[in-house]
């Protein structure tokens, strides 16, 4: 298997992950806060920064709102 090229779009995976979280927390009373707490608890700073840099393309609108809420607290990866 060595030498085979296997391309992985890790940013696309983060988009999938956050959209999946949105779909599974739709009944939360304050969904944006709940998802923000979840991401803060389980995602590394670098993952959060990577998604922030990606922008809103492909993101569920709720996910966009979550990232907007998280943005001020996300440090750049080199600060992590």
């Amino acid at each position, binding site marked *: 298997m060595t030498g085979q090229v*296997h391309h992985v779009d890790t940013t696309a995976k983060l988009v999938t992950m956050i959209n999946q979280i949105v779909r599974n927390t739709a009944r939360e009373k304050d969904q944006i806060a709940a998802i923000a707490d979840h991401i803060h608890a389980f995602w590394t700073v670098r993952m959060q920064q990577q998604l922030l840099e990606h922008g809103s393309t492909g993101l569920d609108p709720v996910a966009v709102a979550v990232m907007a809420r998280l943005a001020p607290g996300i440090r750049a990866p080199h600060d992590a």
Partner: protein
Amino acid sequence: MGYEPQADFGTPAVKSDTTVTLSIDGRAVSVPAGTTVMRAAALSGGAIPKLCASDNLKQFGSCRLCLVEIDGMRGTPASCTTLVNEGMTVHTETARLQKLRRGVMELYISDHPLDCLTCSANNDCELQDMAANVGLRDVRYGYEGANHLGEATDTSNPYFDFDPSKCIACSRCVRACDEVQGTFALTISGRGFESKVSAGLASDNFFSSECVSCGACVQACPTATLNEKAIKDIGKPERSVITTCAYCGVGCTFRAELRGEQVVRMVPWKDGKANRGHSCVKGRFAWGYARHQDRMTKPMIRAKVTDPWREVSWEEALGYAAGEFKRIAAKHGNNALGGIVSSRCTNEEGFLVQKLVRAGFGTNNVDTCARVCHSPTGYGLSKTFGTSAGTQDFDSVEDSDVMLVIGANPTDGHPVFASRMKRRLRQGARLIVIDPRRTDIVRSPHIEADYHLPLTPGTNVAILTAMAHVIVTEGLVDQAFVAERCDMDEFRDWADFVSDMRHSPEFLAPVIGVDAAQIRGAARLFATGGNGAIYYGLGVTEHSQGSSTVMAIANLAMATGNIGRRGVGVNPLRGQNNVQGACDMGSFPHELSGYRHVSDPVARAMFEAEWGVPIDPEPGLRIPNMLDAATDGLFKGLYIQGEDIVQSDPDTRHVVAGLEAMECVIVQDIFLNETANYAHVFLPGSTFLEKSGTFTNAERRIQPVRKVMEPLNGYEDWQVTQELARAMGLDWNYTHASEIMDEIARLTPTFAGVSFARLDQEGSLQWPVNEAFPDGAPIMHVDGFVRGKGKFIVTEYVPTDERTGPRFPLLLTTGRILSQYNVGAQTRRTENSAWHEEDLLEIHPSDAENRGIRTGDWVRLASRAGETTLRATVTDRVAPGVVYTTFHHPTTQANVITTDNSDWATNCPEYKVTAVQITPSNGPSQWQQDYEAQADLSRRIAMEPAE
């Protein structure tokens, strides 16, 4: 400990609030009412001769050796079937009894080979002991009459022989198979003189019969009729050590019985609180891998994974590894490093690996293979109950009236506990099984599930919500429990949600693939059938909605009041021996030991004070995120202890790509596993027989692992981690694993009262063990939930992204088989492969016919992630549209097929749902052949030049 047979009191213990006092041979004896005279005598130190009795079997009364005389009672009753009475006077050794017993023994011995001196059971034979006990000196009948001495020995089982010439037809083996194991594979065929033990049909031998090789019959046999081959080969054991099995999450306790340094056999320990003296084919027999020729015992390094390995000293290997990690940290930062610890490792090893990562590497990038099995359990139960663990002990099943088994295959995955479940089911408990496959527990001798709901893979949340709909709308909620124990606002929200007609069984039946009436019936039974216990496995967690399903299970338990007492509860059946412990020990990247988040300043301060270094307050990378970061060029160095992510983790191509992108991969294992093909440093590990520590099983039971023999590599695994830490500049000086546990206890509130000394004293402890629960807690949430009020959480069914379609019209689900374990690294290196030498694809007859596939044919199994080939077995055990395979063999590489879909909350992989297509094939694919060639190339070890 020297070698002594385990005590046997003849008949089972009974529970009674009434005590009866009697006289036995002049001794006053007090025992619970209902106790037999035989047991009372044994408890008072005066064992009565016996052959057909054993205290793990019901009274049988056939051997006529245990006769006694009782004042005021006529004749000589059998003590094994006579119950004690207040004031009873019993005589166990009178001239009349001695004469009778000698007569009985004469008959036995007249048809038994007199080869004691050369018999494998010499000096470890109850028949021999009893002959001596009754003073048998002669057999008046001679040995020339009709006998069974010419019967041929059945050697078909890989681990034990059946020599019918030595059988006394006591039926202990048959009864052990029935009562203890619950397989009913053995019987006494024929009548009178022709009576003999028979496995299966007349045409069967032990191997071809339905015998599951649990060893209960061998353990029960009072002669050498059923005897381990190892006893014949090695001889009688001379000493024994009590330790804990390293296979599944049941955590059976065994007596490792040794002769010198050589293990002769592993015998289930009767005082083991998880297994109560029972075992399965893996723990009982499949330990030979510990001395397999593939064991690696010398450290090795190489600059590139395409180079051959070079054997080096420990100093050079550790120095090279530490140097590489320090270089990577200096160049790429601390977060370019990480560690993975297997749930097969001890608590102490897991704790040290996460300590090395946090205190040595300076990052929280540590994860455990619990990530890929039970991480949703931790998440879901923590949210709903407040504790990331199951609520019951195994004994609790004895009080269950209804068992709901969902996504678990206990007879294969957790066989010793399955036997206890089956025993309770034979006593009348009811059974609901939710599983796409017709697992063995659905229908087996004397057991038939009231409901088997073969749902479409991926619809767990839908079916649990439909059951909740029935319970709420039909007024079956335990209102008093909910009002007292749960948050009512959250309950009302949840009740409103599940009551919606779109969650009715009738509405959801087409999605679930199960008849609505069946779902309604199962829900009613669970809610009204008495004590309801839910048992679940990876068929719940390894889904995109794994965490939601765990929460839905918790909702169901709370709504029906099935929490906080014996017989009920939420019971995750953990896949590996120390999944619970790995999670407890802070092996996840977001939390420290005891499930305290790294952002918690109070918890962090404890560790910082103990370790003298700052702890990063931000969570680290999970395994899949480590691999992603590696392919992005950000993650460069990984220390893997005891885990084979290339074989066990999903989407193999991605795992390999991640490893190939790293600059230094350290693998510590007992074998050159598949992951080692991509490693730069190999540190040989030690087996569970070669080290000290503790495992924590599925019931939160912390149990000692004791060193049985010296490690082949020279070091216990915790010592290797310590040496790596020291090479990186950390001043670690543990001299024994017990000192690591002492540190765990200092830093982990739920382990505050745990120590090796306490475990030696108690045998085992179920956490929490602290000021509030000084002796542990067999059952949790008794007076209230750990989080305060139980939290109902609305779990909306969200279909997985993995959909069938024209290209991939079938759903693949994966699992394990009784004889093999996980990636097979251990069991494939034992005789267990006789039962399962390759992974097979189960396919329904209609799907097979459509494709022209017959049992034994090679088929191509393809998904969006990849393809492989294996052979098919056609069976209606799986529903149409569903196929199934195991992942025990690296050449199959079932995880080439699985995708990188995962649980929304924990990233636990969605192993259980993959859209696939099956087509006929000519044999192993080019990919498989290439893989084997590459693996062979990667495992080359450079030869030292001749002097």
